[in-house]
């Protein structure tokens, strides 16, 4: 079974704090993704990585950065958290063909006060 794990299920942070969300997958997938999930907006892609140290901006990268130092780990960083970044964050991974299934983590619900 593919396992995608995320470091926290729930996180409460204050405005201006630096926030790290960690994602680890155990299937040797090349592709990893960070999405945010908001009611009425569906899933929106924040960043995508297709290999170690490689990254691509998604649809809403502003206010976020990412790090992929190892193949199995993909980190999302909120440099200075703001209240409009309160959301559910989902990590996913897949093989590179594009037709492959994306496997999702359980999500991190982030509340920024």
């Amino acid at each position, binding site marked *: 079974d593919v396992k995608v794990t995320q470091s926290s299920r729930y996180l409460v942070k204050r405005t201006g704090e630096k926030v790290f969300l960690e994602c680890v997958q155990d299937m040797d997938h090349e592709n990893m993704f960070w999405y945010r999930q908001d009611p009425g907006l569906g899933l929106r892609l924040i960043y995508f990585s297709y290999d170690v140290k490689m990254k691509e901006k998604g649809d809403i990268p502003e206010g976020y950065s990412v790090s992929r130092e190892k193949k199995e780990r993909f980190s999302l960083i909120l440099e200075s958290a703001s209240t409009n970044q309160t959301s559910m964050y989902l990590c996913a991974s897949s093989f590179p063909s*594009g037709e492959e299934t994306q*496997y999702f983590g359980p999500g991190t619900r982030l509340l920024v006060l």
Partner: protein
Amino acid sequence: AQRVTQPEKLLSVFKGAPVELKCNYSYSGSPELFWYVQYSRQRLQLLLRHISRESIKGFTADLNKGETSFHLKKPFAQEEDSAMYYCAPLREYGNKLVFGAGTILRVKS
């Protein structure tokens, strides 16, 4: 811009009734299309993909290129089908998905 439209935020049906979750996409060509599902307190997971032409949990989805639609159908809804459903075509360039806004399916007994 590539767009995916799921016009219904909420679809409520009775157990045993037919279900159709609508999905329309805006771009040309023959995209690969997927339906993902999220049951309560579970992670998002693949339900089915167009290329496989399979039926999963009684659901099927047909690609209609003329109408650019990929509606998800099931002839007889079950209570355990209650979930959030996302239509997700593959982007025209690159191996990334575009997700619709999602439709909540509620099956009443």
